[in-house]
């Protein structure tokens, strides 16, 4: 018997039917039904691919399909992604690899193939862009979409367009994704996490405050480890508890983020979905397979990171003024050392010269397990000074570097290398 009309609108994720019969889709009899009073009004979505790296690898090698799969640094390092089978054993991303292996000894472990994931990511993004031009990628496997005003274009409310998008991602690309649908970015992101994988979760205006009431403060975007601990110390565990405070109190206690806590606790997030997110920094780091302590060894790792950062800057047309060296003496401590240049640069030889000096000061015989370098204070790279008055060779080095870049773009990244990147 068709359900009466005063029921909240529903949607079958499998066949996009809007009718249900006895708790099943009236058309395909599937059970993946989404029911929500505001289903047809909400238009801000967050789409997150499920166990992205692992899903891509499983798609390409069906023999992995039913085995636990972990993607991450092979000998040491951390889990980048693990499939849902591995998650059953308690493995999760960012877990140290040895711990993951202990919990799930039968897991297949693979190193990440970023080039492949980026290619798949581009395909997913292309599908998203068929829904709306307002796509804001957050990382390789997630993005915000603003579908406001697309109803007439697609002949369907945003929820239906999104369900169609999920189905196309599964059919055409062969991986799955989850969607959170709400009225702002904060809640959309929270919603997409709610029933992964292949989830579709809706948070409407009517229940937003109630929903947040008992959620942990950790859920708030911007609450990291240290702020979380601080909040816990102050007895603030749930988002609802934050509402007891005036904005000024929260700002006084926690600084700038206090204002965000105040508003997000009230489900207020005015940030628009913006397509031109400018990166604030570009960085590259590597967790070493075994600790290094000799300057020469650390320097050669640094050079690889410098080259990666320089490549990323050049491909984005950016240059940065602040160079930050990152070192980890052990798993829990991170040491950063920064220096700011008079003029922005994207050239690896300049970044290397400066980061080398920073590294030299810290290479005191103490072992490090991670070496990284990043550039911030970014701006467009046009008109960047490349010649140093005091180092006449710097001009030649820059010309040589540009030539190398051209060769690589024609013949591949490994076509030509500097001697220093060849080890052993």
């Amino acid at each position, binding site marked *: 018997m068709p359900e009466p009309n005063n029921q909240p609108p529903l949607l079958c994720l499998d066949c996009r039917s809007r009718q249900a019969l006895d708790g099943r889709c009236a058309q395909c009899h599937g059970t993946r039904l989404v029911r929500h009073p505001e289903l047809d009004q909400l238009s801000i979505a967050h789409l997150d691919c499920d166990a992205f790296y692992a899903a891509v690898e499983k798609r390409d090698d069906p023999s992995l399909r039913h085995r636990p799969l972990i993607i991450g640094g092979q000998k040491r390092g951390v889990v980048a992604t693990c499939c849902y089978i591995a998650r059953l054993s308690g493995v999760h991303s960012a877990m140290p690899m040895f711990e993951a292996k202990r919990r799930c000894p039968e897991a297949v472990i693979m190193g990440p193939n970023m080039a492949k994931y980026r290619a798949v990511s581009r395909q997913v993004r292309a599908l998203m862009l068929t829904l709306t031009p307002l796509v804001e990628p957050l990382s390789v496997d997630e993005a915000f979409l603003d579908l406001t005003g697309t109803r007439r274009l697609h002949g369907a409310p945003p929820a239906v367009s999104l369900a169609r998008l999920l189905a196309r991602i599964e059919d055409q690309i062969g991986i799955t994704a989850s969607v959170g649908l709400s009225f702002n970015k904060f809640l959309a992101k929270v919603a997409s996490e709610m029933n992964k994988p292949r989830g579709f979760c809706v948070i409407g205006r009517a229940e937003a405050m109630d929903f947040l009431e008992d959620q942990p403060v950790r859920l708030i975007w911007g609450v990291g480890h240290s702020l979380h601990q601080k909040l816990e110390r102050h007895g603030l565990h749930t988002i609802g508890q934050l509402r007891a405070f005036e904005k000024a109190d929260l700002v006084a206690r926690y600084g700038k983020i206090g204002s965000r806590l105040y508003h997000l606790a009230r489900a207020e997030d005015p940030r628009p979905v913006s397509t031109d997110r400018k990166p604030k920094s570009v960085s590259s780091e590597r967790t070493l397979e075994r600790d290094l302590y000799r300057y020469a060894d650390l320097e050669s790792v640094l050079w690889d990171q410098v080259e990666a950062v320089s490549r990323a800057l050049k491909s984005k047309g950016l240059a940065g003024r602040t160079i930050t060296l990152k070192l980890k003496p052990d798993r829990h401590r991170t040491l950063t050392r920064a220096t700011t240049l*008079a003029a922005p640069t994207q050239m690896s030889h300049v970044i290397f010269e*400066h980061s080398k000096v920073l590294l030299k000061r810290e290479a005191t015989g103490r072992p490090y397990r991670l070496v990284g370098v990043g550039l911030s204070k970014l701006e467009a790279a046009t008109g960047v000074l490349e010649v*140093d*008055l005091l180092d006449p060779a710097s001009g030649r080095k820059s010309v040589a570097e540009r030539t190398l870049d051209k060769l690589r773009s024609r013949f591949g990244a490994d076509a030509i290398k500097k001697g220093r990147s060849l080890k052993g």
Partner: protein
Amino acid sequence: MKLSIERGKLLRSLGHVQSVVEKRNTIPILSNVQIEVQNGSLALTATDLDLTIVDTTEANISESGATTVPAHTLFDIVRKLPDGAEVELSLEADQRLALTAGRAKFALACLPKEDFPVMSTGDLPHRFDIASDQLKRLIDKTRFAISTEETRYYLNGIYLHVSENGDSTLRAVATDGHRLARMEIPLPDGAKGMPGVIVPRKTVNELRKLIDEFDGDVSVALSETKIQFSFDGAVLTSKLIDGTFPDYSRVIPLGNDKILEVDCHMFAEAVDRVSTISSDRTRSVKLNLEADKLVLTVNSPENGTAREEVAAQYAAEAMEIGFNARYLLDILGQVEGDTMHAKLADPSSPTVIQDSADPAALYVLMPMRV
């Protein structure tokens, strides 16, 4: 210790020393200023271990002694006292400094004078006097080019040295690799034979502030590692940067033959105007040089374009060259004459800029790719 002093005099003296004290200190005593009664006057001392300033003023002394109190707190209190107030300072038995002015009373926490670091100067074998307006010129015309990059720490100051090129001169040079500024004055008596020294940026800035209202001679004493400036009741002692300043003479091009002469003020205003359109931090301005014509353009992908024409004297072949607008303005701000002389070579080589009114000042500026 007990004394009284007029608020204006105390504020002026505190103003001389307090900026040496860093805002954040890991060693508590470095946040303090030392207050000491010395030979019937009041001596205030502040230090950051690299730089020490002692400033002496007259005061009505009733009891000698010394202590140290938080420098910024004391400065802020005195700043907020009404003009003309008589300030009384006395060290109480509970080791607090009582500050009384009119009906306002403060009791400040002190740290003992014995804990206050004393900077040893060692032997300062080279001594000479230099007129303060000459010293100001040496500083003003070079300090904008001091590098802030820590990696080449030896560029974080002004290189002060004797040049024996023709007439002996005392030269100041600063560079950050993108521009270089050089200024010289006739060699003061007694400076002959002094080693070339690199005076750190903070010392340069503190010194410049101290001598701003002073007109007489400044006594300079130095060794390879320390420098001391004394005048008018103030003594500034600083460590020098331990490093080798690069051979800058290689950097100054001699063969540039394309001469551009332009009204300095008009040019500076035009550079400032056209660079408004750029939203980047590094604002580049393109100069198109044609026969007796200089056209400035700035292109901003986001905001649009700007163009301005400035009358100029130029007879060489037409060329196009880009500069960092701020670097150009820094130099133009120091040109005293009406005309700026630029000697150019090509769009990728350094340009030399000189001041029609002051041949002793010389600037080198690296162009930008535009």
